[in-house]
């Protein structure tokens, strides 16, 4: 029995090492006083805040950061809000076209938005001509686009959860004289906190990692996101900028971890319903 436990620990340590070594490398690169890729080691060789200072003062990193957090947070909150409302209609009402609507939503959401980047560019050049505030190089336009790409799958996820909440609960509210909207706000929504949190977390992570659409639509330095900005930093000077890039990577993890911690109690419970990451 002792031997088996020892083996289990050895295996767990090996996997932990595999999970941690790239992160350790990022941490030591971030602290590396020389700040180059060729001088970065697995374990920190020094502790310098020079890379962090260069990143914060020498690049538009603070702007990228703000843009990314704003885009990801607004997309997460708004897409989940819009999806929850339509999921309620699909779950509780019976109306002509309900089945068609659900199937259409399922089929249409399978189309990865970035496959249609040429038509999307057409849409956005028209928007740019008329409403520049939502056009190319505007984070507001991209937020709308991301929301449009997320509502389909979120409506399905949330509707599935709503279906598991007994209808008798809202029926009781209706008998007591509430409107369906009140039943939705006061009964269904509070009970759905787990799925709403999971959906928001998945949208947040997906959006903050999105590269392709952002790289086509947000090219101005003021409008760039972290993914686009950090990518271009490495594209310019791969070796020399690596230390700054490592600092940026660690700082990018902060909002994700914060949202993760905030919603943690629901994580394991609701994740089975969700998507994956990469």
């Amino acid at each position, binding site marked *: 029995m002792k031997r088996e*436990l020892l083996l*289990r620990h050895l*295996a767990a340590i090996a*996997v*932990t090492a595999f*999970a*941690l070594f*790239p992160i350790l490398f*990022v941490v030591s690169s971030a602290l590396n006083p020389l700040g180059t890729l060729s001088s970065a080691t*697995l374990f920190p060789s020094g502790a310098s805040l020079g890379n962090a200072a260069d990143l914060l003062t020498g690049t538009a990193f603070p702007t990228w950061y703000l843009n990314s957090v704003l885009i990801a947070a607004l997309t997460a909150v708004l897409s989940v809000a*819009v*999806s929850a409302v*339509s999921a*309620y*209609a699909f779950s509780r009402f019976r*109306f002509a076209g309900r089945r068609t609507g659900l*199937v259409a939503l*399922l*089929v*249409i*959401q*399978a*189309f*990865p*938005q970035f*496959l*249609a980047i*040429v038509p*999307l560019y057409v*849409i956005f050049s028209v928007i740019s001509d*008329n409403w520049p505030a939502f056009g190319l190089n505007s984070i507001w336009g991209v937020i*709308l*686009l991301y*929301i*449009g790409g997320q*509502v*389909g799958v979120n409506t*399905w996820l949330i509707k*599935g959860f709503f*279906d598991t909440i007994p209808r008798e609960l809202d029926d009781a509210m209706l008998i007591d004289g509430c*409107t*369906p909207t009140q039943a939705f706000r006061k009964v269904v929504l509070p009970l759905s906190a787990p799925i709403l949190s999971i959906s928001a977390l998945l949208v947040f992570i997906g959006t*903050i990692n999105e*590269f*392709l659409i952002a790289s086509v639509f947000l090219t101005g330095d003021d409008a760039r996101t*972290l*993914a686009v900005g950090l*990518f271009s930093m490495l594209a310019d000077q*791969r070796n020399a900028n*690596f230390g700054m*890039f490592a600092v940026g990577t660690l700082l*990018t*993890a902060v909002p*994700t971890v914060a949202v993760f911690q905030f919603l943690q109690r629901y*994580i*394991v419970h609701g*994740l089975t*319903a*969700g998507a994956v*990451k990469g």
Partner: protein
Amino acid sequence: MNTGRSAAGAWQGSAGGIAARVLVLGLIVAVALWAVAPLLAADNWTGVAIVAVVTAAGLFVYLTPRRLPVKYLLPTTLLVLAFQVFPVVHTMSLALTNIGDGHLGTKQDAIAAIESSSVKRQPGSAEFRLTVAEKDGDLVFLLASAGRAYTGTAGGLRPLEGATLGAGGRITAAGGYTVLTAAQASARSSEITELIVPVEGGAIRSQGLSRAYRGTATLAYDEGCDCVTGQDGVWRADEEQGRFVSDDGRALAQGWKVGVGLANLTAALTNPKINAHFLGVFGWNLVYATSVVVLTAGLGVAVALVLHHPRMRAVRAYRTLIVLPYAMPAFAMLLVWRDMFNTDFGLINRMFGLDVDWLGAPLTARLSVLLVQLWLGFPYMFLIATGALQTIPPEYLEAAQVDGATAWQRFGKVTLPLLMLALAPLLVSSFAFNFNNFNGIFLVTAGGPFPADNPTVGATDLLITYTFRLAFGQQGAQYGLASAMSIYVYLIVAVLSIIGFRRTRAFQEVGR
């Protein structure tokens, strides 16, 4: 929906309900006014009509006292129509054309481009003194010849009043125009070279930054024969290919967009130049997605099992550390992995004293992208498997033990089937996700390494990265063919996601 209640009942709602309705009314009208103003200014009547219809629908839906489900569905519907349905339909229509570099506009555009780019200087061409100026951000040629002044733009040549002529006969100032300094002009020299001022029978082009000449078009379009004629030959319009082709098979570079029917869709399967790539990429794409699912699920489940033991210590610490990769930003970690594999500076080569071009050879590049995705993906599988293991009732295992099952039998006959039940929907959605994992390939290898004789298809290319390069690559954009590829990818993913949703049993709820 509860249609049994009286229509008037909805209006009797609380004061808050009425206030909300007034607010919605104000909001819709305000947005509509804001949206319609620039469309009116631009005489865009189609746009105005769309705004009017959407506004009317919004007002009707939200002000009617009836309880319509559409009240809940309108925002989703509009968003999906604008950002999912329209792009899909438009992609399908592009797939039926030859749109791409050299085939972007109409036939008129192509003729204009052919004629103006064929302008050549002839002996005895008229010369101008050139001053480059700017008006509202656009370049303008200020031209002087024999004491007369003109402005030249892409729109044509016009006389210019009130220009100040300098010593060399050049214009030094003109009202409303900002003259560029020599440094500013040379910074924009490529724009200056490309600016062609059309005039009767030819065009005016710059030569250097201070002279311009009036050249003659060497190619001209003749409506009678629907062809372009020049000294070197005759190019006849080919309406099927959307370009001008000479009798000996040469084509002019500028063409126009024409419908090609299903040619792009069939090319992926029948054109030997393309289908060899398509099938090869498709095969690796399947291998990649399958391997990622098997590897991440395998390692995730294995680690969950290792930690799932009543007398195991420090489980919480292991769990926190193993989940860390999931919290790191994936796009950045993909780039970190790419740079760890770097031949010259990379950590892996330096740590082991190697000099291997990991991402430069097909086999190691493929193994590398799989390893990277394993690292990114297994913590998630581990989380799910851990959760699922905890929900397996211990009684099942005890019962099996009482019946004399060995540890392996208990695992194979009880634990694993129950685990797979919980993991199945996730495995399907993981497969669908990785099938199109653009970042996972593009940010690590960009599809490479590429064989020396064929820079269009790399060893790690997925259909999605291959399509992306078709559309935006260095080889000249082929939007039409790329759109056709997109449709294939879409069909595959749509089928996968329907299977995935069926597995989650969400699908059967439709019929209820």
